[in-house]
């Protein structure tokens, strides 16, 4: 290598998607579908935008929580794996938010950084903090990725080309995340006495947030008919089967915990969140809100 090369490269044009990134950045252009594609026939653009926000916010907020692990993971190999997962989800979120932005007159950043808590549409499971407990991290990833994979599988044929493209890429990613989480569930569940106790406790704490994943919102119900969305209730059997299989093999007990309650029937999909989301967004949006009218 010529010793000057590294510096000479500075004079070149800066290309955002340079393949020299070791691990990639999950940049939007990989999505393979035009953000500006026409809205499918018979679909209310507001419903489609809301649905993109649901799927996008799940990915964005969970990715944000996963990135709390940076420099805190139990081993360097896990640093890389967790960051990969966070990047995958961030990539999915960016496409979905860009699609929603196109439909509502905004963009990915205005949606990520300018909405209030109540305008976020993610499920509660995405917004919890792991509190740097690796068992919580593994348990949440197992539940979340099993569920999202089941959703994305069914969205491969979505009438919306952007959602279908996100599903196409996302299925591979989520398969990987689920595999990672399942393997770690086995190691922690069937590892040491301590890890077994911790893993079981994590599942017990997470289980009340599972029920919400299968609740169908009004927007989803309308979009199912148009072939755009999937009814999450239909994924329950598949997700249960995966979780039962993994937990049994990991010598863990499926928790018998009731779901957290809704407020007048409303929860994350309707913008009613846990107390955790506000803090995550306060941090995420702080700098962008301090400098509202500029580029970075």
């Amino acid at each position, binding site marked *: 290598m010529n010793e000057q090369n590294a510096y000479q490269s500075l004079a070149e044009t800066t290309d955002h998607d340079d393949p*020299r990134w070791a691990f*990639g950045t999950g940049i939007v252009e990989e999505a393979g579908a035009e953000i500006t594609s026409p809205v499918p026939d018979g679909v209310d653009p507001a419903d489609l935008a809301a649905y993109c926000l649901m799927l996008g916010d799940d990915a964005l907020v969970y990715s944000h929580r996963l990135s709390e692990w940076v420099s805190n993971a139990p081993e360097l190999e*896990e640093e890389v794996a967790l960051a990969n997962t966070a990047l995958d989800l961030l990539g999915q979120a960016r496409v979905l938010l860009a699609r929603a932005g196109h439909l509502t007159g905004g963009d990915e950043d205005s949606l990520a950084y300018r909405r209030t808590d109540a305008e976020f549409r993610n499920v509660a499971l995405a917004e919890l903090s792991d509190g740097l407990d690796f068992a919580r991290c593994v348990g949440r990833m197992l539940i979340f990725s099993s569920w999202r994979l089941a959703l994305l599988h069914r969205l491969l044929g979505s009438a919306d080309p952007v959602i279908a493209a996100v599903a196409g890429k996302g299925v591979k990613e989520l398969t990987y995340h689920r595999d990672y989480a399942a393997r770690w569930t*086995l190691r922690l569940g069937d590892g040491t006495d301590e890890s077994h106790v911790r893993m079981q406790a994590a599942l017990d704490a997470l289980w009340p947030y599972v029920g919400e994943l299968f609740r169908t919102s009004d927007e989803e119900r309308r979009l199912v008919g148009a072939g755009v969305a999937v009814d999450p209730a239909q994924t329950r059997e598949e997700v249960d089967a995966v979780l039962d299989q993994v937990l049994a093999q990991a010598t863990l007990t499926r928790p018998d915990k009731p779901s957290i309650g809704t407020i007048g029937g409303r929860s994350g999909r309707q913008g009613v969140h846990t107390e955790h989301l506000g803090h995550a967004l306060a*941090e995420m949006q702080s700098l962008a809100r301090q400098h509202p009218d500029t580029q970075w």
Partner: protein
Amino acid sequence: MDDMEARFDATIAADQRIEPRDWMPEAYRRTLIRQIAQHAHSEIIGMQPEGNWILRAPTLRRKAILLAKVQDEAGHGMYLYAAAETLGVDREELTEKLIESKQKYSSIFNYPTLSYADIGVIGWLVDGAAICNQVPLCRCSYGPYARAMIRICKEESFHQRQGYELLLAMVNGTDAQREMVQESVNRWWWPSLMMFGPPDDDSPNSAQSMKWGIKRHTNDELRQRFVDMSVPQAQALGVTFPDPALAWNPERQSYDYGEPDWDEFKAVIAGSGPANAQRVAHRRAAHENGAWVREAAQAYADKQKARVAA
């Protein structure tokens, strides 16, 4: 013994690589362990100051870039620990030395990141200085280290570009952003110069390292190269460096520059920099909080092995 030493010397003299199984002088081996291990520690500790802004990155694109960059640093640390391990030490042991402060890491990471401009300036100046330091190591006499460095340098050059690109966007933004960039440059310039270490022209250690092909240039040579490259880049950004002595010297065809505060450098290396205690405590907490996880994985692997054997 003389025979082996002669073969070692001949390999070095021919600019060939020493490989893990080759005989090598004990002092060569130990010098390499120190250098590679502390280089690895620098990558891992270096995740913290930049990681400090991942959760607050101002756009999703910046968030993805920063996350990918910090992830690269974990990868760089892994490559380097692996190179050190070919010399008969264990990564776990090196991590223990780090969190017990028995080994050091680059002084630069003991400074805090206080604004988002710091992310750009770290890419531009800190990674830029690191590239000056690291590119010669691609020809280091020790094979595993040289190979790790080739991979790292390729990735590092892109890290620097993303930093510079962020700063370009910021200086073309608002007054507040331009001020943020200048303020950040003011804080990072001198620590960046210190990254090259004190002058070492008369150092017996440096002379020995050069003879061994572990070191290719003096600290001052590398620093001068960095200054000469950075000044036009600063001009292109419209920022200044906080050094009144900085001036073009037509006779030397190089920039003259002032003397960094070596007392500050030594204090930071010795442990009293602005963020030393925080950085080491953070790394220690991550390592210790992960112990039960690593043990569980090991126990599970042992059980599986026993089950297969049964």
